[in-house]
């Protein structure tokens, strides 16, 4: 009796994972090597033709470029900003609980709303941020529809939305670092900078590694909502990321074979990231 219980317990989870993750994964492999017959009722095997087509497609290659630049820029800004803010919050100056609470709030806000809020702030007529930019830097543009500002606009929204997540983890990490180490870095003015980067930041590297991976995932996928709400991939295809390209090819242009090949590419990227994570996580020394 006791022998079959664990299997029964696992049934619901594996039913769902199998049906909605493993099956689609296999299905997308099959779709990506096929072409739908003109009436959509038969699949014709075409081998790697979809992939060849994909990697000769200028728009797709451009979307890879956009994604790499956008993810890289957003990850670097988010990580360093969050680390710095967590460090300041950990010094527990008067009022830090209020600062912390307000700085955490974007965590509860969705990417779609982050995009809406920043569309509003950057709006050339009603937006406050646009007003400040025109006042202080003489930049008065329609951010959402002009190059290169549309790109910065989605980076603003993405960093704003993702940063609290990172701050939360860095704060948790800092709590496990001995107080005297932090104290020394707080008070010794001249050495503050070097100590911070040479001692504290390396101590938190397992967290940084985890956050970089989580941030890459969120910028690659959750950013869809930000792009869709703010720029719709425009102007032209200037802010069309890979996931937005996939959405366009699959649902706007109905190119199932091509879109499935794009799915497989994303799938492979995720597999590599997962593999790297576990490879590193196995060796890593836990700070806990």
């Amino acid at each position, binding site marked *: 009796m006791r*022998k079959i*219980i*664990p299997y029964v*317990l*696992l049934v*619901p*989870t594996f039913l*769902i*994972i199998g049906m*909605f*993750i*493993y*099956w*689609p*994964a296999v299905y*997308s492999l099959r779709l990506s090597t096929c072409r739908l017959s003109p009436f959509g009722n038969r699949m014709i095997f075409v081998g790697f033709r979809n992939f060849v087509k994909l990697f000769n497609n200028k728009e797709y290659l451009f979307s890879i470029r956009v994604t790499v630049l956008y993810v890289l820029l957003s990850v670097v800004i988010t990580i360093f900003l969050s680390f710095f803010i967590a460090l*300041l919050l950990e*010094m527990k*100056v*008067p009022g830090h609980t*209020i*600062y912390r*609470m*307000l*700085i955490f*709030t974007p965590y*509860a*806000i*969705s990417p*779609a*709303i982050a995009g*809406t*809020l*920043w569309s*509003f*702030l950057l709006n050339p007529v*009603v*937006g406050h941020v646009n007003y400040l930019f025109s006042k202080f830097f003489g930049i008065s543009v329609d951010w959402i529809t002009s190059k290169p500002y549309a790109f910065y606009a989605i980076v603003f929204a993405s960093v*704003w939305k993702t940063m*609290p*997540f990172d701050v939360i*983890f860095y704060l948790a990490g800092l709590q496990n670092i001995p107080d005297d180490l932090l104290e020394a870095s707080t*008070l010794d*003015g001249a050495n503050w900078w070097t100590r911070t980067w040479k001692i504290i930041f390396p101590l938190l590297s397992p*967290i940084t590694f*985890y956050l970089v991976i989580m941030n890459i*995932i969120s910028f690659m*996928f959750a950013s869809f909502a930000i792009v*869709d709400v703010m720029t719709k991939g425009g102007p032209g295809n200037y802010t069309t990321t890979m996931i937005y390209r*996939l959405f366009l090819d*699959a*649902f706007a242009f109905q190119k*199932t074979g091509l879109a499935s090949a794009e*799915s497989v590419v994303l*799938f492979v990227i*995720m597999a590599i*990231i*997962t593999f790297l994570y576990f490879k590193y*996580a196995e060796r890593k020394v836990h700070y*806990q």
Partner: protein
Amino acid sequence: MRKTRRRMINTIIVEIILVIFTLIVAMPLFLAITISLQRPELVFSYPPKIFPRGFYVKNYIDAFNLVPLLRLLLNSLIMASMITLGKIITGTLAGYAFANFRFKGKEVSFALLFATLFLPAETVMIVPLFLIMKKFGWVNTYWALTVPFMASATNTFLMRQHFMTIPKELEDAARIDGATPMQYFFKILLPLSKSMIAGASIINFVYAWNMYLWPLVVTMEDKMKTVQIGVKMLIDAESANNWGVIMAGTIVVLFPTLLMFLILQNMFVKSLVRSGLKS
């Protein structure tokens, strides 16, 4: 003396940076509230106002009339609750199997689950997943919005991790007293895991409430759409570009999760960190 002076200067500098930074982070929300309470003529006045003049609630009424916000709120509530419930049920059951039982194929099944940890199927494999929904006849139904997300590796590991911290003696004692494994699960293990389950629930709820791409693709009729899509509908529907109305709708959509977060912040933070730092 010099040390205390230096400490004070240090505190003041930190304080100033934090205030500036907090203002920048909180500003979008604050200004959105301001403009949502503004009459149309004030919305378009230049330079934009920082504090609200008056208390113009009509923007909120307009937002509810422009898109079926009430229905969308209900849909999001149903979707987020069902996903949360599903993830907790499957997660506790599977977590129990992995934490308390030894069985053949444990390593393999664990690895199979582990491999899906970073795989958001609803975005990466959206095409095949959509075609599967079509096969099932689930397009445009609550089934498509909820069932595919009712299990996750993250929840299973979280539960497993927690169950492993509960002393083995408890299980042995229960068995000696004649309790079946399922009695032990329901009567002892689950009650001992209340705070863990509560924490995981709110994180799952916020995640589901904020989903965007999948509901966008899998729902066609307005009456099946969710609030996140409603925000985009508002932007498209508000032809005069009255940001007062758009922001009013936005505030309504973000309010439930924001309120939850502000009230339960400590629980959120603890569970989030726990779910991230599994080994």
